[in-house]
C-alpha cells in the first residue's frame, strides 16, 4: 500500500508540473473566457445605440430616458440641434415626440450606417405613454389601468407517461436536460480521451524506455498498475475540483454579464441535484475508470517509444464511437442506440443522453450502470493479470502480435503454477 502511494505520488507530481496537463486544465477555461468576452464585447458594442429624444415636455423626455433599455438617451429641446448632432454621427437616431391634442404622433429618423435601434422597444414605450395619456383623459386610476392591461395566462407543461403513470415536468427542465446531455457527451469525450491517453502514455513510455523492469523488481505489477491509475485519477480529481472552485469564485461576477445570463437563463439548476444528475455523475466516473483501465492495458502492449501513439488509438476510436452514438440519440431513438446504451464504454455516453431525452427511464439507466460496473470489475481484474505478462514482453511485430503473445504467456504462466 505504501509503495502504491509512492508510485501514485510520483505520477501525480510529474504530470501536475507538466506543460501538457496544465494546458489540458486551462484551455477550456481560456476558451470559455474568451468566447464569453467576445460575446460580451459584440453585444455591448452592438446594442447600445444613442438616440436623441426631442420634446418640449420634460416628463416625456424623462419617460424615455428611464424606459429605453439598451439605448443611450439624450434629451433635446429643438429638432435642429438633434439633427445636427446626428449629422455629426453623435446620434444613431432622432425621435421627435410632439403632442397634439393629447395624441402622440412620433417621428423617428434613423441614421444610415448607425447602430441598430429597436423600433419595437420605442413603439412599446410610445404606447405606454399614449395609454397613460388616454387613461388620464378617461379619469382612470392606476389600479383600473393595471386591471385593463393584465394579460391572459397561458401555462404550458409536458406530460411524461412512464409505466402508465403520468408525471409532469416543465419546459425549462427539458431544455436543461438536453443541455446537460450535450455537455455530458462532450465532457465525457474530452476527459476520457485526455486522461486515457495520459495513462497509456505514462505506461507505454515507461515500458518503452525499459524503466519497467527496474520498477517491477521493487514492487509487484499489480501495485504498480493501481499506483499509476491512482496517480492519474488524482490528477482528474484536482482538475475537477479546480473547475468547481473556479465556478464558485466566478459565479457572481459572471452572472452580471448579460450574455451569460441569457445563456443560463433557460437552465433549471434543479436537474443537477435530481436523480438524473446523480446518474450522469455515476456514468461519468464509470466512463473515466473504464477508459483508464483500457488505456493501461493498451499502454502495456507497446514495445518501444514509437508505438506509444498506437497505444492511444483504441481509446480514441471507442471514445469517438460513443460520441457518435450519443449524437445519433439527439436525432432520435432507435433500436441500435437502445442496445448500445447498455454496453460498457459507449453506454456511458449514450445512456445519459437517452435519459435526458426521455427515451430511457431511470430504471434503464441503473441497469446499464450495473452492467458497466460488473464489466469494469472483470475488466480490471483481467487487465491487472494481462499487465503482469505484458509489461515484460517486447514484440517488435506490432500491436496485434503483442496481444497474441500476451495470451500465450498468460496461458503458460497459468500452467506453470
Amino acid at each position, binding site marked *: 500500500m505504501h*509503495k502504491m502511494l*509512492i*508510485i501514485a505520488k*510520483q505520477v501525480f507530481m*510529474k504530470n501536475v508540473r507538466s506543460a501538457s496537463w496544465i494546458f489540458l486544465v486551462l484551455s477550456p477555461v481560456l476558451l470559455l473566457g474568451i468566447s464569453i468576452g467576445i460575446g460580451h464585447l459584440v453585444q455591448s458594442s452592438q446594442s447600445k445605440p444613442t438616440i436623441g429624444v426631442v420634446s418640449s415636455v420634460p416628463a416625456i423626455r424623462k419617460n424615455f430616458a428611464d424606459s429605453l433599455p439598451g439605448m443611450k438617451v439624450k434629451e433635446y429641446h429643438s429638432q435642429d440641434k438633434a439633427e445636427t448632432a446626428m449629422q455629426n454621427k453623435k446620434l444613431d437616431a432622432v425621435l421627435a415626440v410632439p403632442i397634439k391634442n393629447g395624441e402622440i404622433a412620433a417621428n423617428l429618423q434613423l441614421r444610415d450606417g448607425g447602430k441598430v435601434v429597436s423600433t419595437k422597444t420605442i413603439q412599446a414605450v410610445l404606447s405606454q405613454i399614449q395609454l397613460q395619456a388616454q387613461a388620464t383623459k378617461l379619469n382612470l386610476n392606476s389600479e383600473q389601468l393595471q386591471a385593463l392591461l393584465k394579460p391572459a395566462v397561458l401555462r404550458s407543461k409536458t406530460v411524461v407517461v412512464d409505466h402508465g403513470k403520468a408525471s409532469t415536468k416543465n419546459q425549462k427542465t427539458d431544455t436543461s436536460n438536453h443541455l446537460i446531455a450535450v455537455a455530458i457527451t462532450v465532457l465525457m469525450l474530452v476527459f476520457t480521451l485526455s486522461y486515457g491517453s495520459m495513462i497509456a502514455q505514462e505506461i507505454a513510455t515507461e515500458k518503452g*524506455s*525499459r*524503466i*519497467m*523492469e*527496474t*520498477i*517491477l*523488481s*521493487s*514492487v*509487484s505489477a499489480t501495485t504498480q498498475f493501481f499506483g499509476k491509475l491512482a496517480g492519474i485519477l488524482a490528477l482528474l480529481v484536482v482538475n475537477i475540483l479546480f473547475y468547481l472552485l473556479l465556478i464558485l469564485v466566478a459565479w457572481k461576477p459572471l452572472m452580471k454579464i448579460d450574455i451569460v445570463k441569457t445563456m443560463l437563463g433557460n437552465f433549471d439548476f434543479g436537474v443537477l441535484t435530481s436523480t438524473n444528475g446523480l446518474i450522469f455523475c455515476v456514468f461519468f466516473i464509470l466512463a473515466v475508470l473504464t477508459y483508464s483501465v483500457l488505456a493501461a492495458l493498451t499502454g502495456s502492449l507497446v514495445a518501444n517509444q514509437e508505438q506509444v501513439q498506437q497505444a492511444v488509438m483504441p481509446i480514441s476510436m471507442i471514445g469517438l464511437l460513443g460520441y457518435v452514438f450519443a449524437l445519433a440519440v439527439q436525432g432520435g431513438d432507435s433500436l441500435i442506440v437502445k442496445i448500445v446504451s447498455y454496453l460498457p464504454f459507449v453506454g456511458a455516453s449514450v445512456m445519459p443522453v437517452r435519459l435526458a431525452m426521455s427515451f430511457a427511464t431511470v430504471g434503464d439507466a441503473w441497469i446499464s450502470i450495473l452492467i458497466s460496473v460488473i464489466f469494469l470489475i472483470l475488466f480490471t481484474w483481467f487487465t491487472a493479470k494481462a499487465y503482469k505478462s505484458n509489461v*515484460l514482453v517486447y514484440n517488435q511485430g506490432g500491436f496485434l502480435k503483442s496481444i497474441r503473445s500476451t495470451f500465450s504467456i498468460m496461458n*503458460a*504462466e497459468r500452467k*506453470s*503454477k
Partner: protein
Amino acid sequence: MLEIRGLTKTFGSMVALDDESFTIQPGEIMGLIGQNGAGKTTTFRMILNFITPDHGDILWDGHPLTSEDYDILGYLPEERGLYPKMRINDQIAYFAQLRGMKVRDVNAQLDQWFKRFNVKGKKTDKLKDLSKGNQQKIQLITTLIHMPKLIILDEPFSGLDPVNASLLQDGINMMRDSGACIIYSSHDMSNVEALSDKLIMLKNGKTVLNGTVDEIRNSYGRIKLFIESNLTRDELTSFDGVIDVKHEGNRFELMLKSPEVGQEIFVAATKNGYIPEFSQQAPTLDEIFRMKVGEADA
C-alpha cells in the same frame, strides 16, 4: 543465501534453461557466463519472479522470494532505462523509496556514491544531459544505494570503458564485503576471472561449467603447451592426444587432450638436448570459454 535447484524453463518447444543449480553464500560473487541466448537473463527473470519456472526452486535463506523481499533486492536490468527528463537526485530517490529507503537517507548518501563511481555531472542535472557511461553509473547507483542483500546485475560491464569497469569492480567488491550475495552475467571473459568467486557457464540453457574459478581451471590441468624445438608441425600433430596446433615462427602452441601427453612430447623434443622453450600451462578462463563454445552439443 541464494539457492537455485533444478531450474528449468521452456518457451514453447525451446528449452531456454535446463536443470540449472547453484548456491551463492553471503559475501560471494557469482559470474554467469554464456553466449547470447544462453539463458542468463532468463535465469535472472525467474529469480525476480517475472516469469515462472516450469520446474525447480529458488530459495532465499530457505524460503521462496516473495514481495516481502523486494527491499533487499538490487537489480540492474540488461536494457537500461531511467527517466530522461527527471532530475538525477529525484529519480534515485524515487527508486530508493520503492525499496523502502527514506529520501533523507538517500540525500545524505548521494555525494558519497557520486564520488565512488566518479560521476561527471551535478545531482540536479536532468539525466539526459549526462553522457551514456555516466547515465549507466546513475543506474548502478539506483541499483546499489539501498545496500541490497541480493544483487543481480545483467551485463553490468557492457558500455563501460576499462577505467570505469574497474570502478564498477571496486563497487561490486565493496558490496561483497558488506555481505551481499552477488550474481552478474557476462558474455565475455574480461573482468570475470578477477571478480568472480564462482562461475557458471551456460550453453543453450545447459550448465557446462560450474564451480569456483580455481576448481574450473584446475579441472582442465596443464593442457596448454608452448614449445620451441626441432619438432616440425607434422611431427607434433602426429602425437596421440594433440588436439590443436597453432604456430607463430618457430614457436608452437598446442592444445592437449590431457596433461600427461606433455611428457611424451618433452622426451621427443629433448632427444638432442637443449630446447629454448617448453612451458605447460592450465588454460585461461577465456580459452575454456571458447573451448566450451566450440564443443558440439552433448
